């Protein structure tokens, strides 16, 4: 009969008359006890051996116990130091002994407690006296520790209890398995058993030849860590952007694209931002030096935008009391918000004239000369969304955002009235942080003003909102500093190990 090598060894080591412990067989045949146990189970299934089982008390030393077995008990160190210092004759101060006995930390209390318990002497008001006749050689606890450390058993239950109380040993029960040869086992041995081959790797040849049925596979250490591999993966901020795009497409929004470097006309003037608005000063934006200006902006739109700025729109409309200069409007800049895309779409420049209803979005970069800190970058992604319909109310706006933010676990939205030059009513959105429960600002929104829509010849309602993707990511992932996620200072370790967003 052919059997795997370990089974053959176990079968040969087993005896028909007496039970042999698995651990004994393991040391005899030079295998791991687990491998021997597994072989024994397989042999039992073949009916070649019987398996017995009993429980045994097991005592093992704790880390502290091992230390004491090697270095001695602290109370003995204290005793010896005290004796050497003459504490048998007159009391010696404890402070001095601690140093000499080499005790520190918890060991001091341990030494004192056990020193007194064992009657090696007394400690009174910080002075130590020792009993010169104490017999250290026969300290039962030390002897028991040394015996256990040598791998032998200790039978004295009282001493074991004491060591257990001191936390120097762990007492456990373990199952001991033993093997006895059955009649069939004896027969098989008499007829002869031989070891089948063991193999390391499963090969195509083993599979096709059918040899796999008789070979034994060597055990691998399946618990060990394998070598690290670094799979490619999408950037964490892109993952977040994808998640947002998914949600918006699901809500019926169509994606916008358009220039990053654009004329101030599309970035600001179309949005009814007065030309002397503080956000349009040099320090807040990145204006372009070369090339300086856009070639063309549609004359008719320019005229209407200019009139809206100077005179307002509608019968009771008023404009700004600020200068308006077409040359200034034609200057190029990196867009400070992606609302310039919205302006181009509403004006019919991007996709031609749009008829309501429409929903559009973009998740693209905007550029602002902000102070750099944990939450502000010069380049950031803005989530921009807008809805065009014959009639829209602030309730529609609230309903849309409630739906959107719920997808990211942000609930209990509150709407704080605010001011934007291009929307009215305008709201800052506040929501409940999914983890901290704190009320935090999560976006800015509103219904576009007639002074923005009429010059673009949009004669229905449009509501819009904007939010930094980084801010949403911080909320959704709990990240606290996004400075080095974006840009060349990124740590590859971060990209490789950051938790996936889905």
């Amino acid at each position, binding site marked *: 009969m052919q059997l795997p090598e370990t089974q053959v060894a176990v079968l040969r080591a087993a005896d028909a008359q007496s039970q042999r412990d698995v651990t004994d067989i393991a040391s005899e045949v030079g295998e791991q006890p687990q491998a021997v146990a597994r072989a024994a189970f397989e042999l039992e299934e073949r009916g070649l051996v019987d398996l017995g089982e009993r429980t045994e008390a097991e005592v093992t030393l704790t880390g502290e116990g091992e230390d004491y077995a090697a270095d001695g008990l602290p109370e003995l160190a204290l005793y010896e130091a005290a004796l050497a210092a003459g504490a048998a004759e007159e009391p010696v101060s404890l402070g001095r002994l601690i140093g000499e006995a080499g005790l520190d930390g918890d060991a001091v209390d341990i030494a004192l407690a056990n020193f007194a318990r064992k009657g090696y002497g007394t400690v009174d008001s910080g002075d130590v006296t020792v009993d010169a006749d104490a017999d250290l050689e026969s300290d039962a606890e030390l002897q028991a520790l040394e015996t256990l450390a040598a791998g032998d058993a200790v039978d004295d239950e009282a001493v074991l209890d004491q060591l257990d109380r001191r936390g120097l040993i762990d007492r456990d029960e373990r199952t001991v398995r033993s093997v006895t040869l059955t009649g069939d086992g004896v027969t098989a041995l008499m007829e002869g058993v031989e070891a089948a081959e063991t193999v390391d790797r499963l090969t195509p040849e083993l599979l096709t030849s059918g040899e796999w049925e008789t070979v034994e596979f060597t055990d691998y250490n399946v618990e060990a860590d394998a070598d690290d591999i670094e799979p490619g993966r999408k950037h964490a901020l892109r993952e977040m952007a994808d998640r947002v795009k998914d949600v*918006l497409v699901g809500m019926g929004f169509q994606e916008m694209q358009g220039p990053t470097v654009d004329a101030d006309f599309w970035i600001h003037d179309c949005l009814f931002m007065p030309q002397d608005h503080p956000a349009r000063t040099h320090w807040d934006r990145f204006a372009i030096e070369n090339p300086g200006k856009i070639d063309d902006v549609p004359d008719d739109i320019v005229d209407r935008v200019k009139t809206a700025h100077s005179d307002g729109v509608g019968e009771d409309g008023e404009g700004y009391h600020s200068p308006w200069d077409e040359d200034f409007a034609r200057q190029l800049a990196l867009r400070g918000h992606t609302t310039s895309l919205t302006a181009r779409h509403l004006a019919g420049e991007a996709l031609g004239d749009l008829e309501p209803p429409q929903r559009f979005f973009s998740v693209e970069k905007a550029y602002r000369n902000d102070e750099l800190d944990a939450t502000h970058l010069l380049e950031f992604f803005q989530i921009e969304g807008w809805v065009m319909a014959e009639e829209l109310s602030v309730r529609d706006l609230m309903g849309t955002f409630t739906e959107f933010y719920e997808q990211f676990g942000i609930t209990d939205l509150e709407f704080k009235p605010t*001011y934007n030059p291009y929307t009215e009513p305008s709201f800052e959105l506040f929501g409940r942080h999914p983890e901290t429960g704190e009320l935090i600002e999560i976006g800015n929104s509103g219904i576009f003003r007639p002074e923005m829509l009429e010059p673009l010849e949009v004669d229905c309602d449009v509501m819009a909102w904007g939010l930094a993707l980084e801010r949403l990511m911080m909320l959704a992932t709990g990240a606290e500093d996004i400075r080095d996620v974006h840009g*060349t200072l990124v740590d590859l370790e971060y990209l490789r190990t950051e938790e996936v967003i889905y």
Partner: protein
Amino acid sequence: MPVVNVDPDELRELTDQRDKSEDDLLDDMFGLGLEFEGETEDGDLKVEFEPDRLDWLSIEGIARALRYYYGEDRGVAIPSTNDPEWTIEVEETPEQRPYVTGAVVRDVDLSDGVLESILQLQEKLHATMGRGRAKGAIGIHDMTMLKGAPAKDGAEKSIRYTSMSPDERFVPLESDEEMTPAEVLDAHHMGSDYADLVAGMDRYPAIYDDIGLFSFPPVINGRRTEVTEDSRDLLIEMTGTDQWTVDHMLNIVCYALSARGGRLERVEISYDEDAPGEYAGHTLDRPDLATKTKTVTHDRIETVLGVGFDEETIVDCAERSGLDVRVEENYEFEIPPYRVDVLHPVDVIDDIGRVYGFNELGPRYPDVATVGTRHERSRLEDAVRETLVGLGFEDLLNFYMTNERENFERLGVEPGTDVVGGGEPVTIIEPYSEAYTMLRTWALPSVMQVLENNTHRSYPQHLAEIGLAACVDESENTNVAEHRTVSLAMADPEASYEDVRARLQALTGRFDAELETPATEHPSFIPGRCAAVVIDGESVGVVGEVHPEVIVGHDIEVPVVAAEFRLDALQ
């Protein structure tokens, strides 16, 4: 955003809400758009709001809004004004600063923090509506120190807004000695901050009374007319570049002083026939406390707010916003003269919403059906990114902005040459930081920087980025050609040209594009190990082994092979 410090007890007193808890007060303010931002060391509330409601720039203004909200006051209130006694003659003013306005306020008690509150209002108005004093600057003077000159038109007293030579002399605020305007701009600790505002003027703005020069707007007042807590009668003048702006800044100040018990007295502004600006030859009576009217239909209010209203509620909400309403065919709303934010009827609807409480309205998902889609370009970008990730590349996200050294020099590329990355750069005006002076013309320099910053991390490092690059291009409407570029780099002890060629092959193959790589030369790559990336017959990029000089220049100690090409080539 503007922040005003408010003493809560004073606010309770001014609003007649002595029993209101601080929390309730703050909640009511939040609903109006006034956000509590914390406390000052003295226990004042820091209240922040958006820069449209400039009439809220003082505690008097915030108290007024709350008095209306609580119904303590209703509708428009116009303070009465006495007939003018004083005239501001305007002649030979600098063309850059032609406009002036003014008012007299009598019997105002400036003790107990009132002076401080008015000075706070003045500074905040300068910062906002006054655009850092450029558009409008406020001067407040103690009238007892002024001596009116006989006016041309027979009025009793006048002062003169005109211009002065840089050699004129006067004693400015916080100084003990006479200085010339030029010295003030150069050396005075308050004056030098505003030197830019009068730079380029031959003669400076000046205001004289019968005694002499007493104000150098918009820079500094003279010490003679300095206002103290004991001052009772004030002359307020404002100069600027726009009459409407200074007139409305004046209205806000007049309302605040009137709320403190001051009696307003009008002032005549008499522009000389030859005065610059659009009011030459005109005489204006200021402050102008006329209201304006906005007409709104009932339907529009209901559409914007999304609920049905009865007329009574609308009238109530309007009056509690400090507006008067006449209900005719439509609603005719009267807007008080301190409101500088109401440009269109929609602003009145916002007022009504705030008082009614926007959060009372309740969300509703709009009943509008549309079809959602991704843009084709962004789908392509994503598909290429997915493929690169599948090929084992780490996806990067770098800045669009960079500088000449990183983009050109460190890669050995000359700007304006005919190689990938050699385009004419789009540059930023007066860059804020040396690190960001232009838009990148290609992405490989950014990827090399990431390699440079990660030499302590394990190799191989296979990195890829799909992102924007730009160069000047006069054939574009914006004169800027922006394109998405794909950049790959493999920093790998084992890497050679073949490895990056293999990945390019795999990528182009997935997009059914034909790849050819004819030999070429590029300063960033090793000669003889560099090729043009030609996709479907068009040369769109470069591939090769990065030149050791570039690798070593980035402190990298393993070979780097790389490729860069236009994303749209895979379209």
